[in-house]
């Protein structure tokens, strides 16, 4: 076993462990924190695949932004009801194999062709910042600028819908 393999197994197993802990931990906040942790391990796997940009985005966007939002919502709702994860959740138990089967059906064709991907030229796999950002600042410059307008509209919306009612 090389060092590469060792690191891969460490990240994979830790990822799976975190996934299970997300499901079974009785506290919703703890579940959310385990999910953040699992994102970090997933980012580690991306680094092993030399997809550095994806790894960085994974940490920044998912762990940094989306999950923090999740945690805020959980804490805001003050959701304290704790119960065992399997309790009365028959529908979930029935749905899990279905979801796994659907995922397998989607992944199998890809895995079958993994040999062809291995023979593909090297530059396909370059997930560097340069490759991602060049289109953003050349070809897709205008769409990026328009997202600024979207953010402006969203900000106005939040202010309008969220401000306190004026006292008449």
């Amino acid at each position, binding site marked *: 076993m090389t060092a590469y393999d060792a690191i891969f197994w460490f990240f994979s197993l830790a990822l799976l462990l975190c996934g299970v802990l997300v499901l079974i931990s009785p506290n919703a906040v703890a579940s959310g924190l385990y999910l953040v942790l699992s994102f970090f391990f997933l980012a580690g796997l991306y680094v092993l695949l030399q997809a550095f940009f994806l790894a960085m985005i994974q940490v920044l966007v998912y762990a940094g932004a989306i999950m923090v939002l999740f945690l805020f919502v959980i804490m805001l709702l003050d959701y304290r009801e704790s119960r065992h994860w399997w309790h009365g959740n028959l529908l979930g138990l029935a749905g899990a194999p279905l979801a796994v089967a659907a995922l397998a059906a989607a992944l199998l064709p890809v895995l079958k062709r993994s040999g062809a991907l291995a023979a593909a030229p090297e530059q396909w796999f370059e997930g560097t910042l340069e490759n991602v950002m060049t289109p953003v600042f050349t*070809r897709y410059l205008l*769409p990026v600028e328009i997202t600024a307008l979207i953010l402006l509209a969203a900000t106005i*919306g939040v202010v309008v819908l969220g401000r306190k009612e004026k006292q008449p």
Partner: protein
Amino acid sequence: MEFYALQMEIATVVLAVIGLLAGAFWPKHVSLIRRGLAEGALLVVLASLFLAFPQHHAFFGDTFVLDRFAIFFKQILLGTAALVLLLADAHGPLRRQGGAEFSALVLLAAAGMMLLASANDFIFLFVALELVTITFYVLNSFLRGEARALEAGLKYLVLGALSAGFMAYGLAYIFGATGSLNFDAIHHALHGDKLPQGVYAFGFGMVLLGLGFKMAMVPMQIWAPDVYQGAPTPAAAFLASGSKIAGFAVLLRLIFADLLPTAWEAQPVLLMALAAITLLYGAVGGLAQTDLKRLLGYSSITNAGFLLLGIAAGGDVGHAAVIYYLVQYLFAVLAVFAVLTVVANASDTADRATLAGLHRRSPLLALALLLAMLSLAGIPPLGGALGKFFLLLAVLLRARVDPAFYALAGVAVAGAVIALCYYLRVLRGAWADPAPDAATRIVVPWTVRVVLFICMAGMLVLGVWPQPLLNWALHCLH
């Protein structure tokens, strides 16, 4: 300088930002600011008629095109926004809420729609579409004190997110099938032999669903009656006019770029079925409505069905008919919403009783409502009659080579007759029902007067003198 091509959009966004800042600094003069924004938007439209546009050029790495079609729709859409701003200034609940944010958001949505008219790349299209959708989330729930407005906003939010999801999913399939998201590149890929046609058609169908949300097309029509009823009347007016026009402009753009899956062009069974179902759904659903704004929601669905007739029939006649129908529909629907803005000012609901005896309380409003309803119903000599006539003509021309279109024409006529019933029922409420005792004369603000006169003139002129617009529409196509 490439940004020269964006002059109309930049002017619109600058207006929106100026309005926002002015509203924050001079909250006492908000009404003046709102009217100023409307006039500014009208000025931009007027100026654009005389400005030189760099034509038939692709900009920003081929993501943005500026041809006659795009410029025409930009002018129409910004003009619509200006009229909606005038309505917003006369709308009681919005005035009471204060602030210039509503006007700024309308202008931002207009900027998104104008960008949509120029889209030449699916990423650009998606981003511009989201600008419109996100702005409308806020516009629809703007009167957040009212449960109905919140319901409208929530329904629009959930279904809008769903339709955006459909669209992104479809884009992934299109990219997978063709290896590009640029319209020109996809067009080239479509004529190669290695394209998986089924995958591409599925992706395009998903994109059509995403656009269908904007156009109120079955099966993405379910929000229309609820949102039209709950949203502030000017926001609903903009949804019915601007948002629908932008959706159809994008669909036409996709067709002009020759992106329809090849199987659909030869055998447009799906488009025909969508047109027929949308038409009948709106016509039948509208029969049972008592609230006028809900009725307009169903009317909007029926009209989407009519417009899809022209899309399904295709050809120069079909596409020109769609453009003509869009413009005349804009005048009719804005006139109805202008009447509602004034009549239902206090309660913001509009059942038949609110309209009772309108011809005594305000002859101008009653006349505008009469013309608009007759135009929507397709009675000559108004624009709506010719619009329906041109669409049917396109369908019948296509039927000469494809007899299935005769059935579609039959469905269209049946739908038009059913819809006629409910339009006339509204008129009976306004002209025949006696006014309630407590009713007083309605004072029509000058802003609404301007909108009404523009709309009535538009309906009448288009009804008796359609050649200029038709010629211009055909001119746009080439």
